[in-house]
């Protein structure tokens, strides 16, 4: 019953919010209440107790519960952000729908074909959010935004096609299903590499991610990058868990995947260095991070996998922080939109500091949370040979350089605030003749507080990662495909 409630409640509430979408504050309150209810339900659910529904097995293990709770918190916070920074007329209903589908996905991970369909449905919902505009917006939806949505839709469907083929191959290669056939594990791994590569934005399938970071509303990017993408990663881990032969029979294939991960990290970092736009740079930094996570996963060692999963968890929090700060840094400040401001840290100190701190956390610079997870990935790389470690460290160096360049160009410049000249009061001048004093608004208090809290959370996890690491390591040790 609780499982059914977890699946259907957000979907029903999404429909209600869709009907009320013009009353944006009311829908936000409803959506936050829904996600809080979901959080309570998930907290109360017992773990590792499977249930049957319509012939499907639903289950929640400690790792899935942890991620589901984090996703729901991220969802609730992104709805709250939409209170002050409008994200689109349908953002709240679509966000609730995506959270409902992701909840179903995490409950149904042992049903791979169904999960691949749920993920494409979540992607389809995300497309609607990408092209959405706030209620009463005086602007047209951008051409680039439409192109981005179309690209995402096509690539996600191609990913679903590849995954379906792989799962059908797995089904028929099961002993007893079709006799006399050779297990095509290489082909299956190849199909997974393309399917999950598209979903996780691994090079050369990465182009959609910077586009989404650049063209969609910040909180929509959060739902895509932090929620849908990370769920895809968990799906990949569980796929390996339920079909360990794919890993066991593909020693060379897993080495190629490691190489692909290292290449993705290097290419993502190099392309981030070439960007002048803050959002695009972030997009490429996420590509770099996807490479790091893929590398950790492909090592199939306890160290590497723990690092990858912990990094994915950290990324979820960091992505929310970064896009929240980007939204704040892009707030209008009385200048024409085409003027590039170079003193963003002075103009928006909390958002600027959050952006810098979040980026450092993403790159794994101490004392932020990314450091603990990246360190595990580096250790796993060192076990696999110095070349991989060198490539990963080089990539991180490049990514750091990209961040420093962006900070110099956009954040740390001298103050551009021009003090107003004192005009002498002439005979006959009244108060109405004098120009109004230019008052710049400060950062919205609620969002500034949220950014500070998220930054503190990143620091806290970075300084004291043990409780989270213990939960993750326990689950990873129980995986069947781990190489001892």
């Amino acid at each position, binding site marked *: 019953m609780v499982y059914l409630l977890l699946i259907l409640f957000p979907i029903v509430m999404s429909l209600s919010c869709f009907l009320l979408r013009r009353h944006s504050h009311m829908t936000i309150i409803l959506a936050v209440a829904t996600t809080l209810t979901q959080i309570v339900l998930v907290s109360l659910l017992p773990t590792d107790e499977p249930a049957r529904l319509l012939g499907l097995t639903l289950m929640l293990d400690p790792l899935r519960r942890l991620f589901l709770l984090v996703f729901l918190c991220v969802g609730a916070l992104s709805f709250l952000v939409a209170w002050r920074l409008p994200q689109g007329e349908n953002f709240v209903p679509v966000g609730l729908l995506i959270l409902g589908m992701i909840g179903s996905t995490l409950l149904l991970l042992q049903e791979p074909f169904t999960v691949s369909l749920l993920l494409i449905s979540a992607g389809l919902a995300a497309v609607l959010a990408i092209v959405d505009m706030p209620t009463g917006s005086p602007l047209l939806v951008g051409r680039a935004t439409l192109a981005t949505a179309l690209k995402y*839709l096509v690539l996600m469907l*191609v990913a679903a096609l590849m995954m379906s083929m792989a799962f059908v191959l797995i*089904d028929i290669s099961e002993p007893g299903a079709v006799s006399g056939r050779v297990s095509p594990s290489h082909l299956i791994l190849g199909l997974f590499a393309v399917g999950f590569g598209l979903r996780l934005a691994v090079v050369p399938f990465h182009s959609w991610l910077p586009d989404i970071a650049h063209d969609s509303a910040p909180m929509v990017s959060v739902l895509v990058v932090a929620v849908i993408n990370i769920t895809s990663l968990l799906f990949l881990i569980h796929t390996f868990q339920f079909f360990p032969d794919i890993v066991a029979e593909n020693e060379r294939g897993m080495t190629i995947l490691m190489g692909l991960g290292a290449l993705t990290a290097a290419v993502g970092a190099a392309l981030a260095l070439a960007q002048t736009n803050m959002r695009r740079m972030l997009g490429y930094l996420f590509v770099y991070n996807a490479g790091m996570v893929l590398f950790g996963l492909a090592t199939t060692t306890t160290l590497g996998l723990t690092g990858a999963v912990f990094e994915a968890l950290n990324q979820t929090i960091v992505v929310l922080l970064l896009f929240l700060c980007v939204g704040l840094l892009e707030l209008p400040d009385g200048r024409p939109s085409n003027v590039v401001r170079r003193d963003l840290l002075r103009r928006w100190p909390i958002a600027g500091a959050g952006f810098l701190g979040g980026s450092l956390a993403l790159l794994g610079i101490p004392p932020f949370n990314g450091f603990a997870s990246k360190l595990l990935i580096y250790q796993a790389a060192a076990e696999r040979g110095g070349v991989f470690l060198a490539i990963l460290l080089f990539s991180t160096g490049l990514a750091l350089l990209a961040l420093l360049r962006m900070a110099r160009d956009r954040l740390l410049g001298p103050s551009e605030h021009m003090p107003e000249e004192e005009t002498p009061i002439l005979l006959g001048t009244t108060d109405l003749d004098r120009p109004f004093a230019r008052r710049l608004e400060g950062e919205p208090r609620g969002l500034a507080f949220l950014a500070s809290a998220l930054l503190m959370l990143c620091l806290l996890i970075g300084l004291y990662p043990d409780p989270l690491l213990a939960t993750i390591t326990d689950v990873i040790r129980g995986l069947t495909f781990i190489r001892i």
Partner: protein
Amino acid sequence: MDLTSINWAAVGIALSGGIILLLRDWRVTFPALLLNYVFVALLLTQQPYLASSLQIGGWGISAIVLVKLITGVAVTAILTLTALMFSREYGLEDLDEFSLAELRRAARRAQRQGVEPFRFSNYVVAFWALVLAALAALALPRLYPILPSIAVDFSWYWLALTGLFTMVVAGDLLKIGLGLMLCANCIDLLYTAHPHPATARIEPNGLGVYPLGLLSLMAITLALGIAYLSGLLYGRLKTLELNELYKR
């Protein structure tokens, strides 16, 4: 040549998929999509594990096949209605003067372009894509046989290849939509026609109700998504041509 040995459902899938890949006019390609769904349903009726569970007018038909047919009709109806009236008006009263001016410019540009005359050169790439797809779809069932019947194997390979190539050669959004629908149809056929290990599923043949329902739901929502994007694109650029979308 023994005509009874030919699998006419597979031939129908090949022809309808080929028409969708090769031709541009939606008045031809949308009926071809409907035929594609019908032939896929016919192919599924040949599968021994999809027993007739319903009687309609004295004809026995499997409920699963009927669901596929209804899905096909719904998808084609959505896309056809979109093609007939895809003009989505923005809330013009909300737009500022710059946005209104941009809409006027887009309308003028679309009017200048007019109707493109028929040129054979427009079909060269699509034709060679069709040849390539045909060669691959004939070779792959022999090189990598996945499903028990060669006709079904050919059909899903053909649907995947024509779907992907249709998206590659597409010049407008509706054509991309057709490519997506062919790919979705391929996933559907692949799942429904492959022999499932009948363990702990709700259907005796191993097919799950939930994935089957999700497959149909996905196809219909995909068609609705394409319709929504088409409306949005036309409202913005007064055309569905993709080259306008990528102009700087």
